[in-house]
């Protein structure tokens, strides 16, 4: 049952990403050149509703299904990693025109060359894991 709910959530998310064009290289380019409100509207409206939703969950002491705590742990308060990692991520987001969610959506949509981006992302993740202790956090 749980297996099915994760799968359906993923399908739903995939359709939303493709249909809203958030998975399109063109929309990412347009966002970084401030050519349209579209991407800002998507992220902004998701964010406003996300803030309201999480506040309601917290105020009502809601639990996840099955009674476990909600996974809303505070992030570590060490800033170099967020800024440096963020800048590196942004360089890649604009270069490949895709972030991790849309990569998979595009693979399913039949764009085979996106597999190179996914392979690159796996190598990048692996490289971070190996170099992690040498990087400022």
């Amino acid at each position, binding site marked *: 049952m*749980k297996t099915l709910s*994760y799968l359906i*959530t*993923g399908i*739903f*998310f*995939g359709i939303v*990403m493709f*249909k*809203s*064009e958030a998975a*399109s290289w*063109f929309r990412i*380019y347009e*966002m*970084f*050149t401030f*050519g*349209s409100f579209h991407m*800002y*509207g*998507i*992220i902004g409206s*998701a*964010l406003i509703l*996300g803030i309201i939703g999480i506040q309601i969950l917290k105020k009502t002491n809601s639990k*996840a299904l099955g009674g476990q705590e909600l996974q809303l742990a505070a992030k570590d308060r060490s800033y170099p990693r*967020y*800024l*440096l*990692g*963020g*800048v*590196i*991520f*942004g*360089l*890649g987001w604009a*270069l*490949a025109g*895709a972030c*991790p*969610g849309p990569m*998979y959506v595009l*693979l*399913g*949509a039949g764009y085979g060359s996106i597999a*190179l*981006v*996914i*392979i*690159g*992302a796996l*190598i*990048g*993740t*692996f490289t*971070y*894991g190996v170099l*992690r202790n040498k990087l400022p956090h």
Partner: protein
Amino acid sequence: MEYLLKEPWPWYAAGPLIALTLMILLLLGKTFGMSSNLRTACAAMGAGKASDFFKFDWKSQRWNLLVVLGAIIGGWIAATYMSTSTVAINPQTAAQLATDYGITSAGTAYLPPEIFASVNLTSLENWLILIGGGFLVGFGARYAGGCTSGHAITGLSNLQLPSLVAVIGFFIGGLVMINWIYPLIF
């Protein structure tokens, strides 16, 4: 009817549906972060031999790979039955892409074939763009502890200052790439 089905969804439909995805995953006892599965996949492929970062019970993260599998299926459904797979962007942006970089496919494609079409993968430059872009995304997401979903949506929704720093970083990186590095590579 078919026309309606294939129309793209406006931002004010997509944003709330993304917030709904976040809430569903929270209520399922999980979190919304699409880049974590890259670490899970590395661990599943045996990367724990090279770094402790990948020594964890990746099977406990199986749910995340199911979300990924769903996203692949969702992409297939949307592209096959619910889309014309063309994206109409700002005409000025489209014109600028054509003039500056020779990318003339805006409005006729979902991804620019100049970069993504398999016939153009004979170009070493395109390989480097795709693998290099992916590398930076994967490296940066783990270094920053999250990507667009984990920081820009989940972290900011939970009012996390580190996520704001990360998102500012995303935009610094994106703007540097588009304004200064694109003219060098395209």
